[in-house]
């Protein structure tokens, strides 16, 4: 990345690793590790939406949480506006917290059923002592209004709301401290189709208004195509390919990206009837014991001998796209 462009980079991830130890036996000796995230390098630019896609268990959510330091990464750097937060201590980290927030998948589980909407949304304001008294109440009303909820709902409880409205409450809470960066972890996966569009539109509106930067984690490729500027495709703890939305969907380079795109059903019977599908064999390998060489080699339809022996480098293909595959330029 050229120096001139560096100014636009908000979050820089360098060789991030997040391994979860496995303990066994009476002595609870460590016998191995689940390599949930195993060497990620990418950056997120100010004001963009970076989509992070992949199948369940590929490490998308772990990546999102590690970037926010909800986990302590095993190795690697996470630079937020140039300063490394991977090894910050608790009190310094706490000062950074207001600037980066998270929206969770399941609004049912991420909202405390015993707290009113007002106290849920104002909790971050209390915790960080930003405002109090009347100002606080005004801020909460403003936030509810911003996410399309009636401010008079302030004394209601989460169970009185529908799924889409609950997700709006979660978004209002994430916005409370005026963050710059929000990790959206499958924010629409638990919602019905007609409600998904409402929430995605809201996220886009807020981004336009407040200049937010999103890491949008999702397994829904068509929604990612709609909302993201660039997309990173993950498989078994590694990023396979990173490119702009257009490039990735129109001209995928990595065999896994190709297979993934061809597996997404298209709501058009004519296209479905003519489509050539790449059906991957087998299942995702165990991340505690990933295959040697390229992690995708066991299921890759075009793998050659070197794919089984040698782990592919994360390569710059030029034109702002990156890929981890030996055979990507053929």
């Amino acid at each position, binding site marked *: 990345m050229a120096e001139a462009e560096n100014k636009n980079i908000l979050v820089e991830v360098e060789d991030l690793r997040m391994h979860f130890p496995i303990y066994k036996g009476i002595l609870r000796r460590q016998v191995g590790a689940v390599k949930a995230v195993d060497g990620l390098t990418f950056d997120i630019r100010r004001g963009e939406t970076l989509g992070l896609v992949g199948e369940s268990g590929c490490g998308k959510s772990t990546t999102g949480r590690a970037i926010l330091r909800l986990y302590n990464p095993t190795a690697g750097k996470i630079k937020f506006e140039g300063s490394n937060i991977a090894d910050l201590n608790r009190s310094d980290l706490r000062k950074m917290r207001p600037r980066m927030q998270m929206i969770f998948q399941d609004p049912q589980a991420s909202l405390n059923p015993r707290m009113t909407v007002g106290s849920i949304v104002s909790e971050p304001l209390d915790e960080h002592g930003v405002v109090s008294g009347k100002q606080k109440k005004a801020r909460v009303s403003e936030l509810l209004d911003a996410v399309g909820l009636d401010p008079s709902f302030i004394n209601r409880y989460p169970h009185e709301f529908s799924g889409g409205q609950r997700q709006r409450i979660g978004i209002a809470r994430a916005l409370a401290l005026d963050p710059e960066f929000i990790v959206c972890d499958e924010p629409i996966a638990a919602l019905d*189709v*007609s409600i998904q569009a409402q929430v995605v539109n809201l996220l886009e509106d807020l981004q336009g208004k407040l200049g937010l930067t999103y890491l949008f984690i999702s397994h829904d490729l068509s929604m990612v195509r709609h909302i993201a500027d660039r997309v990173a495709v993950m498989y078994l703890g590694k990023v396979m390919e990173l490119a702009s939305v257009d490039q990735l969907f129109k001209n995928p380079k990595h065999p896994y990206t190709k297979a993934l795109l061809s597996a997404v*059903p*298209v709501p058009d019977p004519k296209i479905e009837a003519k489509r050539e599908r790449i059906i991957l064999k087998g299942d995702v390998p165990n991340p505690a014991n990933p295959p040697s060489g390229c992690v995708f080699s066991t299921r890759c339809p075009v793998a050659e001998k070197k794919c089984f022996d040698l782990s592919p480098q994360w390569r710059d293909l030029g034109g702002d796209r990156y890929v981890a595959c030996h055979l990507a330029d053929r």
Partner: protein
Amino acid sequence: MNLGTQTSDPVIEVTDLKTVFHTQDGTVYAVNGLSFQLQPGELLGVVGESGCGKSVTMMSLLKLLPMPPAEIVSGKVLFQGNDLLHTDEEALRKVRGGQIGFIFQDPMTSLNPVFTIGFQIMEPLREHLGLDNNAARARAIELLELVGIPSAGDRLRDFPHQFSGGMRQRVVIAIALACDPKLLIADEPTTALDVTVQAQILEIVRELRQKLGMAIIWITHDLGVVAGIADRVAVMYGGFIVEYAQVSTLFEAPKHPYTIALLETLPGINKDGEHRLMSISGQAPNLVNKPQSCPFAPRCKYAFDRCLGENPMLELRSNDHKVACWWDVEKNEAIDNG
């Protein structure tokens, strides 16, 4: 109620099925007079959002709902000359898992964790077909091979937790197919699976349909899946079928405002992401109130006074295309039928 050109006897014929739940908050009208039929070998896709009554409908067909609170108020389910709703429990047990196979959404909860896969596949073979152990075992291996499980013979002794999600769903499909059912009911069978695994399962279903020629009811909320495998589609909303058509007709020329809106909300993997997503404002209807107006009217941009006073019934609009709506979207005028 006959639809267009088919002449052969339907596998199943459902007429005016109504199911309600008696709850503390009042009576919930979950299924409000559904009628549909399936020809041999046909795949009917049933789509709709959560709470629209898709699953309750299919559970009602085989009386799988807990009664009470559920009650099947009226209806007729003709399957091979018998009305399943007036069949005694003993005879129904022979139909369930025998001539009608079931696949549920979550393979982890539909398999019993303490029995081996082999035992669970052989159980219906012994119960329904009266096979002895050896014959059942041979058939079980054959079934596992049919759904693409490698080294099937060795895996009979494995327990469900030793299989991955996709493999488990294959086992569930194998069990559902065990007795050569005439009809297979699949309730969101790929919703819990990843897209690449979903693609594998859909491929298997396509192959099996050609090989075995059974009729399938496929419940899903994913219009993309329906587009890929269904012959006909029923769109459900608020406990009603609001549109019923051949799959190509439904996607090319949808006529119900809800279907149209549903298709518009999809971002689409083949569309460019420039435009703003269309959304359907408002919420899904509360089914506690007895439906007297069109259930979609409060969210419908075409709604006019008749929609709020009178509930439209499913009517044949053109060849093999039925719609429940007072508005003709193509002509942009109210339907004139008195």
